[in-house]
């Protein structure tokens, strides 16, 4: 089994780019274009880390972890209007039906999109010699928040453009014990 330090930023970028594009294309018929990619190491101050995500406006953030010979967590940020659009499209609902269905349905749909994206990402890691399994998705909702990782994580952030909307994938991988 290769050492975790051998996981290159390129492998991570290729995996997340393929995974996110595949999920959005297959489930939603949307094209994602990778924009800015940033990374940070444990030696960077979390507050000033270049990979930190500070998104403003109402957002829904899906989080799914992977545990095994490699441990990590991926947050997927979607602004609320885009999250609503994705949910309605995926479930074949009108805006009115979505309104009646409530926030739980949107949370569940974004949780599933995150689950598929992280699943596809980590399957690539498994096949590269890092077997691991997924955790159950969780959801955060809020405005103007940022997530600061604990120390000893490698962090890479990828911003994807989808028309007027943005999807951010924030990847945190634990290194060392």
């Amino acid at each position: 089994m290769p050492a975790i330090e051998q996981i290159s930023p390129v492998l991570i970028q290729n995996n997340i780019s393929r995974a996110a594009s595949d999920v959005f294309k297959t489930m939603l018929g949307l094209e994602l274009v990778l924009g800015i990619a940033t990374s940070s190491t444990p030696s960077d101050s979390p507050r000033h880390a270049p990979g930190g995500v500070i998104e403003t406006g109402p957002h829904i953030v899906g989080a799914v972890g992977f545990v095994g010979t490699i441990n990590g967590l991926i947050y997927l940020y979607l602004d609320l209007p885009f999250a609503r659009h994705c949910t309605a499209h995926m479930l074949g609902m009108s805006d009115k039906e979505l309104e009646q269905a409530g926030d739980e349905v949107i949370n569940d749909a974004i949780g599933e999109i995150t689950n598929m994206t992280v699943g596809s990402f980590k399957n690539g890691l498994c096949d590269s010699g890092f077997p691991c399994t997924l955790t159950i998705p969780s959801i955060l909702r809020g405005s103007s928040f940022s997530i600061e990782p604990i120390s000893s994580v490698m962090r890479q952030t990828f911003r994807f453009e989808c028309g007027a909307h943005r999807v951010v994938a924030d990847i945190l991988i634990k290194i060392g014990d």
Partner: protein
Amino acid sequence: MRYKILTVDDSKTVRIIVRKAFKGYDCDILEAGNGVEGLALAAKEMPDLILLDVTMPVMDGVEMLTKLKADPTLKAIPVMMLTAEGGRDHVLKIAKIGVRDYLVKPFKEDVLIEKVGRVIDLKPLSDAPSKTKSILDAADIVIIDDKPAIIQQIQDGLKHTPWRVHGVATQGEAIDFCARTPPDIIIVSLSLPEESAFTLFRLIRTNVKTKYTPVFALVVKTEAQQQQQAQTLGFSAIVTKPIDLGELETKIAKAMNLDTSQRYFATEGNNLVMRLPENCSNPVLAEAAIYLKPKLSDAVDAGLNKVVIDIHQLKALHMGVIKLLFSAMQTCRELGMHFALVGNAQIISECKGFEDTRGWTFYESLDEAKANLGKAPAGAAPQLAPA
């Protein structure tokens, strides 16, 4: 038989997508949110297939699958994994426990349906199960032939029908077409290169959307071996070249189980008009005969008691026609209906030559017949219209 599919997934989103995907098929979707609920529902409902996620709270998919396969009453239920867990080692581990198929998320609904269709005999629901389609309804027919002239000939020959006739040249185009617009009839030329007609037929029969679609083989009349091969393989009908377009139309209507009564019967004002076409071959007469009593009975039921039997388009009289006309007149008498005949000079003349038809009298036009029938009082005894 209506199949039961159990979807076990903690994501309501996935369960909704599965339900949506199978909406157009003859099956019931049962839902469970984790392995414990899944096992309980499987034991209660005995589904025909289980779609199973891996990562779930309470009891995950691997544990549920292990327990299912250890239970003698449940172990025969086929399981298809539908999960984001798709690493090679993981798939191999689960495959060893015993699954029928493995579909990694994200997934397209079409792919899910196709894979499920390989496990259970999934049938598409009819758009309008209670209403029989008729020859006046639109339908999509696709012809696969690399000779544009043949496609054009069929398109021209069926122009008078409400059917949309599409033409494609290759097996690949045919598959794409069927995926986009599942047709009502598929006509495949057996002269496509490299026997691709037979390969295409097998692909059509393995696709859930087209496995019950009638497929006709289009073949040169003298190619007996190809015709035999097509029959053995299970083609619905053989259409020989040169194409008899009337026969093709009849075969299409029969394959689609269409109500063709409108060819022979129509309600016009207060009259039921029975019309025979120019050429009354035996299949045509047999078809008209099938509808005769039901249509006349329906007319009586609807309050009509006058029938015009219009054979003015007919080119020649023969015993088959005479028998059908006798049968029509007899039925009218039994039902208490008034009737009148309309014919052309040739037919009227031929009728004079037969003992049994010599006494028949005809009007020269439909309007004249209707006008005279209109004089018959409602409820009056039936009679043959004037000599």
